[in-house]
């Protein structure tokens, strides 16, 4: 199988490589401007060709909640969003807490057209926070990360043990840093808006307290701890302090925490209900500053699909989560890059080299021999978000109808065109 991506501007972490025809053969990049017969041509003229994005944080709901998402729909959604490797979270039914489930996911994903599945496994059995999983067996079965994401690990001793095992095994630990008792029954950010609306609040202190614990345990054990979906100024300040002190932590932020605030909840629409919650404009400013100054290491989606019926329950009953794999790049490009507050190169870094570095994977490059995981971006054409056309089973989105630029028009994974047309 040989592909040519013709006439695109080649951008990767090494810089602007100019306008070229990029050739792909048998799953790897073959070279530039080689000519010769190809099986498929992809028109990239006037567009940007760049390594496919890496998402270290997606809820694919498979097994057990296929009504929300499954491997096929989730990996197709990721491909449509320009993603190559996607780390799937372990809070499925049953929980990904044994090597058999990991192996089954890997085997089934190999038969699915779309992004590459890189499964995470649970820290505790059943995500109950009581018993450690067998981290070595999970890693051997193909898990690339351990996390109880969706549920904070309340027991600090258990978290420490997990970090000790993970450090020895070279596994990445991803946290869900919220203190459960401070979070209490909170369904949105605690502050002037939650008090005005009479909705139970989840204070930023719940995040800051747990980021501190998670970071100190990382320092104590030497485990590489990725602080998922940091949402607040205070949480990020604590993470900065930890990093400055040499703790082996990295920081993830999400597209929704970078673009939405708790003011959205004035609509009482559970489409905005997410954990950790949407914070204030000051928090958004702080997270955006962190993208520029290096406090943030990666942007992960925390893609968390639910059915429309679940999201049309009341604010107390509706589940937490926003499905965003298919809008992440256009959203961030339009709001941050097109407005001049973030250079394109930096946004790409946070979606490519940043997450690769967090995982200890090679930085993705447009060089001969590198895996052919590529995305073609149209930075010019403006299109309205239309959730009904999502590949994800979650067709509702906070950004419905918003005009965005920067759409991924083609995605190549392992040398195959998995999104867009040849």
């Amino acid at each position, binding site marked *: 199988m040989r592909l040519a991506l013709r006439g695109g501007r080649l951008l990767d972490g090494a810089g602007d490589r100019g306008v070229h025809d990029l050739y792909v053969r048998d799953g790897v990049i073959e070279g530039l401007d080689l000519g010769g017969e190809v099986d498929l041509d992809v028109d990239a003229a006037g567009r940007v060709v760049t390594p496919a994005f890496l998402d270290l944080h997606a809820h694919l709901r498979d097994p057990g909640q296929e009504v929300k998402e499954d491997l096929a729909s989730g990996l197709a959604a990721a491909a449509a969003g320009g993603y190559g490797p996607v780390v799937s979270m372990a809070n499925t039914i049953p929980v990904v807490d044994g090597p058999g489930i990991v192996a089954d996911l890997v085997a089934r994903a190999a038969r699915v057209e779309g992004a590459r599945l890189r499964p995470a496994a649970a820290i505790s059995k059943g995500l109950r926070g009581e018993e450690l999983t067998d981290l070595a067996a999970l890693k051997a079965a193909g898990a690339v990360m351990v996390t109880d994401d969706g549920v904070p690990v309340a027991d600090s001793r258990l978290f420490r043990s997990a970090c000790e095992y993970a450090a020895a095994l070279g596994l990445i630990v991803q946290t869900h840093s919220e203190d459960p008792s401070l979070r209490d029954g909170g369904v949105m950010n605690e502050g002037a808006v939650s008090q005005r609306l*009479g909705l139970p609040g989840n204070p930023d202190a719940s995040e800051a307290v747990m980021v501190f614990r998670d970071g100190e345990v990382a320092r104590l054990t030497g485990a590489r701890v990725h602080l998922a979906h940091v949402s607040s100024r205070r949480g990020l300040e604590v993470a900065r302090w930890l990093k400055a002190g040499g703790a082996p932590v990295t920081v993830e932020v999400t597209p929704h925490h970078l673009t939405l605030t708790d003011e959205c909840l004035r609509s009482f629409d559970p489409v905005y209900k997410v954990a950790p919650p949407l914070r204030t404009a000051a928090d958004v400013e702080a997270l955006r500053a962190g993208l520029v100054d290096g406090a943030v290491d990666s942007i992960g989606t925390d893609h968390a699909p639910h059915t429309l019926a679940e999201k*049309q329950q009341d604010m*107390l009953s509706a589940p937490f989560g926003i499905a965003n794999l298919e809008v992440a790049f256009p959203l961030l490009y339009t709001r941050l890059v097109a407005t001049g507050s973030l250079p394109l190169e930096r946004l790409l870094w946070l979606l490519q080299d940043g997450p690769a570095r967090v995982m200890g994977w090679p930085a993705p490059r447009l060089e001969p021999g590198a895996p052919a995981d590529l995305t073609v971006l149209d930075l010019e054409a403006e299109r309205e978000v239309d959730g009904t056309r999502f590949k994800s089973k979650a067709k509702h989105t906070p950004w419905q109808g918003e005009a965005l630029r920067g759409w991924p028009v083609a995605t190549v994974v392992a040398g195959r065109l998995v999104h867009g047309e040849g």
Partner: protein
Amino acid sequence: MIGAAAQVPPPTPPAAVARRHRHLLDFEGWTAEDVASLLETAEVMAQVLTRPVKRVPALQGYTVATLFFEESTRTRLSFERAARAQSADVISFAAGSSSLKKGESVRDTLRTIEQLQADLYVVRHPSAGVPHQLARWTAGAVVNAGDGRHAHPTQALLDAYTLRAALTEAGLPPAERARPFAGRRLAIVGDVEHSRVARSNAELFTLLGGEVVLCGPAALLPRELSRLPGVHLTTDLDEAARDADALMALRIQRERLGPRRLPSLAEYVARYQLRERHLEVAEPHAFVMHPGPINRDVEVSSELADGPRSLVERQVASGVPVRMAVLYALLVGKR
């Protein structure tokens, strides 16, 4: 009898309210003028209720549905009486008696109810925001009868109606029609955090020109509410009562307050029960209010609740005319 009822002239439609508002969800977007108009309509309705035939044909042909996802016999009956006194048909839906199951969305429930073709839905729900959600989905009008901790606007309206009348009778009529509480202070005492009554009253009394002091134990008194214009907070009941024109005690719902929030009920009673001595530091005419039902000798001493300054029974009585005015304003405006 119907003929006699028909001779009672219907009140002038509060046209401005009807034109500007399809729903009553909270007081967001409501002007003091809109509220003054509603309160005046309620006065006319109160006169209707003193007649031998307590019924006008104003809402004949309309259907009002009461959707109560949370128990409240008193509020539901008050709304149903208000609808029937204007000859509307009434449909009652109580979640407890329905097949409402976990996982069924609020929207699914509405779809079912909408088949009954009501013109107006009176909604109570344990979650804040459900009336807003329903208002997005239905062509009918929505009246919020209490949603979680968020709002209970008809309670605030009947409190304002009651207090305005009591002040007038005490020789203190409002100086301005649309700002009847200018220069007045209302102290609200109790579990402010969990109280939709406190939030709606704070919103409405300040809209009508008054000042509101919210008072309660620190763990139940959200600091952020002090950002609302005209609203002050204090944990000291003596300070809250000082120079107040009315003292309103909130119902303590013991089931909501575990020992992590409140050390004991005795501690609450000792520090936050409204007593005679609080009236002594308030204005000489100060009134005692409570949204009911009262936990006697918990939030307020029986002496005060049953005393000459108590408006508690008048608050209950005001419920029907005020709700009549709300239903009338929202339905007749759509005609």
